[in-house]
């Protein structure tokens, strides 16, 4: 309010009409606000009302200051500065008019692009997950067992050094941390994509063999030895 009162006093001082004074900066800020929050436009606030420039209290409180300014101007050699010569405090970027149509019927769907983006990102995430799910990382320990058979056919005591067949998988999926944080494949379909010759043994056959059932033992030694 102080600033507005000063402006009006100056207008009066030099014979101007203070009612024609426009707060250009405020208008720009209002336009920016309307473009940033389109719902404001729906409230029919296209041109906010500029508050009155002067109140009696303001006039009294600033009278002394104005008098001092007038005294300074009355001294010889002092010329009044050009009116409104001071630049704006900051530069406001131009308003993007393309955003204004959102204020109408399109305002209801103002989040539609974001939804589409999220759907797109979700789709990409799903595709990424599905891609990861088809990786042969999870079932690899079983599929790689035939390699172990060649290394240790005599059922030697446990040696962890022989448990990780690194040659069958890329190094990135063979690290301890990689295995810890990777998501195991959940789709049984991925098992069908395993290379031929590494068909996993039927679980019931494995159990029967471990129990020592004669038939399963015969099958085991005839056919594929490992899962």
């Amino acid at each position, binding site marked *: 309010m102080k600033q507005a009162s000063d402006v009006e006093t100056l207008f009066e001082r030099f014979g101007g009409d203070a009612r024609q004074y426009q707060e250009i900066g405020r208008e720009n800020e209002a336009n920016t606000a309307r473009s940033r929050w389109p719902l404001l436009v729906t409230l029919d606030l296209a041109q906010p009302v500029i508050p009155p420039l002067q109140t009696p209290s303001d006039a009294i409180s600033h009278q002394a200051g104005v008098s001092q300014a007038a005294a300074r101007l009355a001294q010889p050699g002092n010329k009044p500065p050009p009116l409104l010569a001071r630049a704006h405090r900051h530069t406001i970027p131009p308003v993007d008019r393309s955003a204004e149509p959102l204020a109408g019927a399109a305002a209801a769907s103002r989040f539609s692009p974001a939804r589409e983006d999220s759907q797109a990102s979700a789709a990409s995430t799903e595709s990424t997950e599905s891609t990861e799910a088809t990786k042969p990382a*999870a*079932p690899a*320990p*079983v*599929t790689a*067992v035939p390699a*172990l058979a060649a290394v240790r056919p005599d*059922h030697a005591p*446990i*040696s*962890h*050094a*022989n*448990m*990780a067949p*690194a*040659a069958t998988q890329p*190094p990135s999926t*063979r*690290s*301890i*941390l990689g*295995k*810890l944080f*990777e*998501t*195991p*494949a*959940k789709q*049984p379909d991925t*098992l069908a994509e*395993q290379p031929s010759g590494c068909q*996993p*043994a*039927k*679980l*019931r056959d*494995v*159990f029967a*063999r*471990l*129990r*020592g059932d004669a038939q399963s033992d015969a099958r*085991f030694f005839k056919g594929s*030895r*490992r*899962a």
Partner: protein
Amino acid sequence: MTSITATTDTIRAAPGGRTLQVMKSIAIADYLLDRQISPQWRGPLTALAAEFESQISTEELRQLMHKIGSRFAAATPLAPCESTADLADALNVRWNESQWGYVELDDESQYLRIVHYCAPLAAFGKQALKWTPAFLEGAYQAWLGTLGAEGLSVEQATEMDERGAIEFRVARARA
């Protein structure tokens, strides 16, 4: 130099030997695994384990943890499994859900080897690793029982090593 075996793949990739690098990898893995353990429960669980050990024998504690593992397995049943690969996937789904590491299966002629990596059993303290793995033993026993492994038993074959690996073997139950 048992630590060299911790990351066998790395050593295989560089037969010239990069022992220092391997040991650093183990230290990093240990650090990250340790951070997986909730600070809220580390102290209470360690105190619980210490109190248990002061009151109950190790063998009884193993039986207790075995039963707890069975109860856990009953509460979180596996998906249907037709093969050992299915079984590995189903187990890893369960362990991944609870961030309890991962498992590898290896079908030997006389037994089915289950190697469980990175189980957060250290939350009970390293001293308790003598009996806390029985939790996994009980869980595997219960899960395999539902899949038709009658007459077979799951037994812990090794203690947790530097890689956080514990081996279990599924074989014919002793008479």
